[in-house]
């Protein structure tokens, strides 16, 4: 079958691309490790870019080889976990979404948080932005429940990606005015939920709706 023939050729040219990007920036040992992990990962549909980026970063920061190797392995694990978490939420195998999921893990979110966002059912592109924003919010100190609640409400409201991208800045300015990250996120959730209902009906004076509760992770099954 053509696809079977094409795969090894694609991997070969990908390997050459990786070697070029790493040449002169990382040691040969690290380069070999990255190529190995990238090839194995690509066969499972995982992106290689995050591995390459992390290796280059380590080289630029003059980090010893063994620490760079450990960091690259960590990224490889995160990509695996992110991919599994996304699959659990729906048929998503978009490499940008997987990269964004791995970033969310770095920022402190969990695999179930990623699955919860995937379950919202947004497009791959919106989900990717959602995951990036969720990770960024976590990096700002928003606890995961408020974080996922806010991002999923915004995703569900069907607004364009720009509204997601503005969330971190809104949280930062609320925090600068004295709010906690959690409270800031909760306030934005209420606003997003209100906007999802397209504002108050022409009779106004209505209470804003209750914020959408964050999705509860499913309890583990009996062993």
């Amino acid at each position, binding site marked *: 079958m053509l696809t079977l023939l094409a795969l090894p050729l694609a991997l070969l040219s990908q390997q050459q691309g990786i070697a070029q990007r790493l040449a002169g920036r990382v040691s040969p040992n690290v380069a070999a490790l990255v190529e*190995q*992990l990238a090839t*194995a990962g690509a066969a*499972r*549909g995982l992106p290689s870019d995050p591995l390459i980026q992390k290796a280059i970063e380590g080289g630029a920061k003059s980090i010893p080889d063994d620490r760079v190797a450990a960091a690259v*392995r960590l990224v*490889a*694990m*995160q990509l*695996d*976990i992110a991919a*599994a*978490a996304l*699959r659990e939420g729906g*048929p998503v*195998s978009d490499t940008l979404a997987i990269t964004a999921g791995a970033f969310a893990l770095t920022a402190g979110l969990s*695999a179930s948080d990623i699955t919860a966002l995937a379950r919202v059912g947004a497009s791959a592109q919106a989900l990717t932005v959602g995951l990036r924003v969720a990770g960024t919010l976590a990096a700002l100190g928003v606890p995961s429940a408020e974080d996922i609640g806010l991002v999923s409400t915004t995703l569900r409201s069907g607004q364009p990606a720009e509204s997601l991208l503005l969330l971190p800045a809104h949280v930062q300015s609320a925090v600068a005015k004295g709010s906690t990250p959690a409270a800031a996120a909760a306030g934005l959730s209420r606003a997003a939920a209100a906007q999802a209902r397209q504002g108050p009906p022409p009779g106004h004076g209505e209470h804003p709706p209750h914020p959408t509760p964050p999705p509860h992770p499913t309890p*583990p*099954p*009996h*062993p």
Partner: protein
Amino acid sequence: MRPGAEPKDGDIVRAVLAGEPERYAVLVNRYRDRYARYAARMLGSADAAEDAVQDAFVRAYDQLAQCQQPDNFVGWFFLILRNRCFAERRRSRAEAPLEAADSVAAADRTDGGAETAERRRALQLALMELTPDQREVFVLKHVEGLSYGQIAERLSTSIPSLKMRMHRAYDRLREQLREHT
């Protein structure tokens, strides 16, 4: 294997041993919470459970080549975690399970209220006074909901000996709860 299918435990174990160690993370994620409750009730707190589960995963990784049935990784992992839970007892007898009270109390504001929290705490404290074997059979049956047959299979022991352990556990629990009420 087509991309997108969920890999089986055995496939992941074999892949790790064949030179893809980063794949192990999928197993960690898959089973991280499976025995968390068992560990928490055995050790008295979620914090202790976290340490035990973490240590068990690391040990399982180190000894992965000794896993006889890769397709039953989870059963093998349970035994490693079990050993780790039993070892904990020898480490820190002095530590009272204060975290049990805190973690129970924090969550109980919404379900059951203060009285339920207090009773849960009392029972957990009483459980910590049992031998680990007695506590374990109680936890597996009354927390995890396994039958005596399932427990016997998992621990490679007989149902009558389990019942003997359990019945002693019932008596000791009653004694502890009466003494401290």
